[in-house]
């Protein structure tokens, strides 16, 4: 893959930058329609971002709703309109952290079964898929879960933001409030661990449709 195309894929953004910026300006000025258009542009990305971290469709839907509500209420506080995307992801990340913290607290009183939750969640939303496909999907998320468990909190976040949420290094540094060199160091360490995960590499090279 040519390098330029590669970079474009990593830093993929919904809509063009200028389109998003003008919509953010309109929304800040009080246009509800403009904000609804921003929701249309970013809802799937934010939903997926939350799903990657919670692996529950229901939780991802509820959290996405909360995230956009929070963004809607606090949009007037956004100073740099060209940083809407990283601002939105930072809201999302904080919301997911809160959710996970509460979930950990609740788990002190009763036990969760994440893999079961993922399987159930996916089965509910994709009944039309073949059983074999479902098994493959569940296996994929299981492998991802195993990989992410081996990463530190920071490595996991940087890895997910870069390669699954397609944010640039600059955007990640804004979202996490860390310097770009810190982000790169964590990304490098995460890649070291990823490279050792032969099973997932094999799955990516062969098995996935």
């Amino acid at each position, binding site marked *: *893959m040519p390098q330029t195309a*590669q970079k474009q*894929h*990593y830093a993929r953004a919904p809509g063009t930058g200028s389109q998003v910026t003008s919509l953010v300006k309109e929304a800040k000025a009080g246009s*509800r329609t403009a*904000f*609804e258009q921003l*929701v249309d542009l970013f*809802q*799937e990305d934010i*939903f*997926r971002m939350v*799903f*990657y971290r919670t692996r529950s*469709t229901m939780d*991802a*839907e509820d959290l*996405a*709703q909360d995230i*956009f*509500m929070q963004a*809607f209420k606090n949009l007037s506080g956004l100073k740099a309109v060209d940083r809407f995307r990283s601002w939105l992801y930072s809201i999302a990340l904080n919301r997911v952290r809160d959710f996970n913290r509460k979930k950990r607290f609740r788990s002190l009183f009763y036990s969760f079964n994440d893999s079961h939750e993922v399987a159930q*969640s*996916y089965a509910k*939303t*994709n009944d039309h898929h073949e059983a074999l496909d479902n098994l493959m*999907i569940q296996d*994929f*998320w299981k492998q*991802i879960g195993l990989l992410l468990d081996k990463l530190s909190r920071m490595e996991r976040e940087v890895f997910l933001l870069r*390669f*699954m949420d*397609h944010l640039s*290094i600059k955007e990640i540094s804004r979202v996490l409030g860390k310097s770009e060199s810190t982000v*790169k160091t964590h*990304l*490098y360490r995460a*890649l*070291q661990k*990823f*490279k050792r995960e032969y099973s*997932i*590499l094999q799955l*990516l*090279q062969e098995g*996935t449709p």
Partner: protein
Amino acid sequence: MSPDRDLHLDEDKLLWAVVDETELPLTLQEHLSTCPQCRAAKERLEQSLVRLGQVAERFAPLPRKRVSLPVEKPSSSIWWSWSRRSYIGAAVTVTLMIVIVWWSALFRTTPEDSEDMLAREMWEADRVMTEASMLVENALPPVYLDICGKSDPDYDEEFMQFLIPPIENEQLSYDAWRGGVELC
């Protein structure tokens, strides 16, 4: 420039190249741009990561419902806020007027009321004057009047005459002492 075989990127350098190629020393950057072997190794890793993102996206479910924004309240519009303010202002004015009218009605005096009031004041003045006259005649309270026997008016006159004889009697007794009684 032919790629130098000794300068091939090791695994760590390859990972740094994936993270950010500009982080590599210039010599390695130049090597990477010319060495097909290193370039292929880097692209293989990058492709795996791109594929990871694509597969994750494909295997993630889609949201079943659209994010709904809070219902737009008409109170947020300028017109509504102004009309609401005017409604509140009108309500306050009407309430004030009612209170003022009620208050004035409460303390309003008619001619009949003033005549009654005058008669009441005159009766009160009479009562006060009567009390004052009684006090001028005898300022002692009833308890002291009982003690000194003044509560009985008949006895009182005799008693007083006994205690303090009239002046004529005094003059008579003085004249008698001087040389006999001379009756006029």
